């Protein structure tokens, strides 16, 4: 098995120290997000593994959190997208806003939305302003396509000893395209509801550029997992 990338132990230690200081100060403990990729062959044998901390929340994610925590509508600082504004950029880069609060909606009951994990072949540098993958890999069995599995409604697990609430978001991508596919980027999408206009929208909240890239040979399966962890103080 090929280990393409693994966690940086020094950084993990620094995160633990950060959490210790936050605990001491009785502050909200910073959520941490990890990204894992695993390629398996037809027999289910793991061929390669990639593990890293995801460091790539984009402006959409921050604005979503700010709107909920500060209880202010997305149009309260104007209706353009960018620094100093709370609007959300949709997949085309157009600003979405609302006079009510924006919030994440459950994902399982709505067909036709692509929320969840999507992978791509683009290698544009990560940017805080990203609102789409550089080059999304389409769902299918044609050349350069991967078959995406359905993602179920997320349910976290809780560890009573560590007080960690952990969510694993997993998606499988099967390569039935007939050729190898090199995955270079991973995006996480959430489904938002704009309440005053009763309109849903898929929004990119994180985009990770892979280094090194992950190759999925024909008939191999790629499993991508985002693990989000929030530690409770009690």
């Amino acid at each position, binding site marked *: 098995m090929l280990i393409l990338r693994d966690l940086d132990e020094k*950084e993990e230690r*620094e*995160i633990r*120290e*950060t959490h210790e*200081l*936050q605990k001491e*100060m*009785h*502050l*909200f403990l*910073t*959520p*941490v*997000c990890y990204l894992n990729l695993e390629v398996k062959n037809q027999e289910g044998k793991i061929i390669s593994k990639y593990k890293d901390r995801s*460091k*790539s*929340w984009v*402006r959409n*994610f*921050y604005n*979503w*959190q700010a709107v*909920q*925590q*500060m*209880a*202010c*509508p997305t149009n*309260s*600082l104007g209706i353009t997208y960018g*620094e*100093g504004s709370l609007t959300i950029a949709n997949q085309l880069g157009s600003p979405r806003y609302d*006079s*009510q*609060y924006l*919030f*994440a*909606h*459950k*994902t399982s009951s709505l067909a036709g939305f692509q929320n969840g994990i999507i992978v791509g072949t683009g290698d544009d540098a990560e940017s*805080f*302003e990203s609102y789409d993958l550089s080059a999304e890999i389409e769902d299918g069995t044609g050349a350069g396509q991967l078959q995406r599995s359905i993602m179920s*409604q*997320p*349910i*976290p697990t*809780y560890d*009573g000893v560590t*007080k960690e*609430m952990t*969510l694993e978001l997993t998606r499988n991508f099967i390569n039935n395209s007939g050729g190898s596919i090199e995955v270079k980027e991973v995006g996480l999408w*959430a*489904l938002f509801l704009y*309440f005053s206009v009763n309109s849903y929208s898929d929004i990119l909240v994180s985009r990770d550029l892979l280094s090194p890239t992950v190759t999925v040979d024909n008939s191999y399966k790629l499993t991508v997992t985002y693990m*989000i962890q*929030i530690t*409770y*103080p*009690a």
Partner: protein
Amino acid sequence: MEILKHISDLDKKRLNRLKEQHKKLHLMSIPICKMKAQVLDKRNKVSVSYEDLSRSWNRNFYNWQVCQQMTCSSNCMGSAFGEGTLACKDKDGNPGSSNTPHHLRTASQGYQENSGGLLHGIIVGTGSTPESFEDYYLESVIEEGTGAGQLNYSAVSPIVPVYDPVTKELKAEVIRYMLNNSGGTIGVNEVGLMVCLSGMYYTMISRDVLPSTLNVLADYQLKVTYEITITYPA
């Protein structure tokens, strides 16, 4: 002017250290909350001042944040309130959850409140029981009115945050005035922050107990400010 407390130099240094660590490690910024309480005399001059970091987000706040960041239904871990579940507890002690994530939906569900209302925004009380992560309402809320032991609560305006492009800080202030028309002195010991989460249940998300009683003399008013800050990475 009597200063009951102010934010210590040590805490200021620690906050700066945390900010640097978050930037270096590319961690998501956490909401930093400060609470300021001032007693104003009849000429609006500050007679007593208290300011500290609010360290009192409770289980309700954590569960709301987890639901939003993990996009999971608030009943996905059961409908009871307590460790290991995502249900919130309303001000009357009833657990609340549903098959959507906890969220603020309409602009009337946040911190803004009409004059005299005690369901949103800032409320104060006389109770001094130590803070608990499981708190769901003030121990002894001071009612609206002009009778003995009562305060006249002002309206809480809709929140419009302010962004500083130099520090990249987005700041929201929730402010409320409470006028003592009761004819006697009222001792304030606790401050709470309320919202109305999805499902229309009124929920306290933070309770701060003051280190010593803030006495609001007859015809004096109490001004309470919660300042929530989120630092953007770019």
